[in-house]
C-alpha cells in the first residue's frame, strides 16, 4: 500500500505548478489597478478598503508589467487548475482518501483534543498514531480543498463579465462584483499563507522522506 495514491501525487504537483503560475500572474494583474473595493463598483482613489502595494517584477509573470501577458497565463492555467480540482475530488471520494484521511471525526472537535493537538504542534511534535493526518492537518487540507481552491474558481468566474448572466445571484450574495474581486485577492493570499506553512512544516518533519514519498508514493508500513 502506497502512502500517497498516484492520483494524489499527480494532482499535487500539477496543482503546485498551477497555483504558482496563477498567483504570480495574478500579482501582475493586481498591478494594473492596485486598489480593492467592496460593493458593486469602485474606481476612484480614496474609496478603496485596501491600497495594494505594487509587486516587483521578480514576483510576477511575466517578469515585467504586462496586463495582457499576465492574463494570457492566468486564463490558460485556470483550466488545468479547475479540471485538476474536479479530478482530485472525484478521486478522493472514489478511493475514500477523503473519508478515511481528511474528514474529521466528532471526537476530534472536542476542545481538549484540539488543545492537545495545538500544544503538540507547538512542540514541533508531528508524530501521530492511528490516522494518517492529525486534526490540524485534516482541517488545513479540508479548508484548502473545500473552500480556498474552489473559492478561487468561483470568485474568478464571478469577476468575468461573460459569466454574469449565470452568476449574478452569487455575485449579489457577496455584495457585488468588486466584493468578488476583493475575495479573489484575499483567497489567493490565504492559499499563499497555506503554501508557506505547508512547506515550512515539511522542512521541519523529514523533508527528504516527505518529498520522496510525494513523488514515488512511499509506503504505508510504519
Amino acid at each position, binding site marked *: 500500500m502506497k502512502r500517497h495514491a498516484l492520483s494524489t501525487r499527480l494532482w499535487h504537483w500539477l496543482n503546485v505548478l498551477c497555483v504558482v503560475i496563477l498567483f*504570480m500572474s495574478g500579482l501582475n494583474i493586481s498591478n494594473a489597478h492596485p486598489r480593492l473595493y467592496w460593493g458593486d*463598483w469602485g474606481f*476612484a482613489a480614496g474609496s478603496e478598503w485596501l491600497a495594494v502595494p505594487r509587486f516587483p517584477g521578480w514576483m510576477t509573470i*511575466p517578469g515585467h508589467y504586462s496586463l495582457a*501577458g499576465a492574463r494570457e497565463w492566468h*486564463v490558460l492555467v485556470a483550466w488545468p487548475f479547475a479540471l485538476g480540482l474536479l479530478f482530485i475530488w472525484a478521486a478522493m471520494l472514489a478511493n475514500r482518501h477523503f473519508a478515511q484521511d481528511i474528514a474529521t471525526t466528532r471526537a476530534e472537535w472536542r476542545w481538549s483534543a484540539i488543545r492537545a493537538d495545538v500544544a503538540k504542534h507547538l512542540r514541533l511534535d508531528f508524530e501521530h498514531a492511528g490516522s494518517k493526518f492529525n486534526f490540524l492537518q485534516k482541517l488545513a487540507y479540508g479548508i484548502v480543498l473545500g473552500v480556498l481552491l474552489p473559492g478561487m474558481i468561483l470568485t474568478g468566474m464571478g469577476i468575468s*463579465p461573460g*459569466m454574469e*448572466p*449565470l452568476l449574478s445571484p452569487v455575485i449579489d450574495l457577496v455584495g457585488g462584483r468588486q466584493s468578488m474581486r476583493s475575495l479573489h485577492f484575499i483567497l489567493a493570499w490565504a492559499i499563499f499563507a497555506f503554501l508557506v506553512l505547508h512547506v515550512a512544516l515539511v522542512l521541519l518533519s523529514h523533508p527528504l522522506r516527505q518529498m520522496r514519498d510525494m513523488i514515488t508514493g512511499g509506503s504505508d508500513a510504519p
Partner: protein
Amino acid sequence: MRRRGFMAGTAALLAGACSKISDTPTAQSLFRASEGWHRGAQRLLGGGGLVKEYPRSDISPFFRGNGSTAIDTPEYAAAQAAGFVDWRLEIGGLVAHPLVLSLDNIRKLPQRTQVTRHDCVEGWSAIGEWTGPQLSTILEGAQLFPDARYIVFRCADTLGGARYYESIDLDDAFHPQTIIAHMLNGAPLPVRNGAPLRLRVERQLGYKHAKYLTGIEAVASLEGIEGGKGGYWEDRAGYHWYAGI
C-alpha cells in the same frame, strides 16, 4: 533569510521561464485555444441570458473615461460644437442594404435603456444608465449576408497614432443588451465616454465597448482588417479578442 532568497530566486526563475515560453508558437496557440474554451464554456453556461440591470439609485456618481477620452482634431471639435448634427454612422460590408444613419435616425429607432455595470480589464467597475437602439435592430435593417460572421466597429479616435477599432461575433451582436448608446444617465454621451455614439456589449470587458463610432461593418473574417486580431488592443498588446473573461 536564506529561505526567502531561495523563494525569490525560484520565483524569478519561473517568471523568466514563463516569459521565454510565452513567445513560442506552442504557448501562443495554447493561449488562443484557452480563450476559445472560455468563450465556449461561458456561452454554454450563460445560455444567452442577460447581465444584471441595476436600479437607477445604484448609478455611480461619476462615470470614469478610459483609453481615449477626447479627440484632438478640428473636425471633431466642430462636430461637437454643432451638437453632432452631421455625425454619420455607416453600416456596410456584407449587408444587403448599406445604411447611413444620422443621430436623429438613431434616436427614432426603438430604444433600450439599461443600467449596467462596466468592468474594465484593469479591474475597476462603474455603473451607468445607457440608452440607444439595439444593434440587432440596425443589423436586421441592413440585412446581413449569410457569410457575415463578425461585426467590426470603426471609431473616430486614435491612440498612439493608430485608429481604434473593435469587433464582436454575431452571438454578442444580436444579444438583447448590445446597444449603440447615445445617452449616459439620461443625457447625451459625454466626450470622455465616446460622444456621440458608443457600443455597449455588456458581457465583455470595457475595451470591447468601442467609442466615437463612425461605422459598423459586417465581415466574414477578421484577417486583413488592421492587425488582423480583431481590435486595437488585441493587435497592439495581445489582449484577448474574447473579453468575457
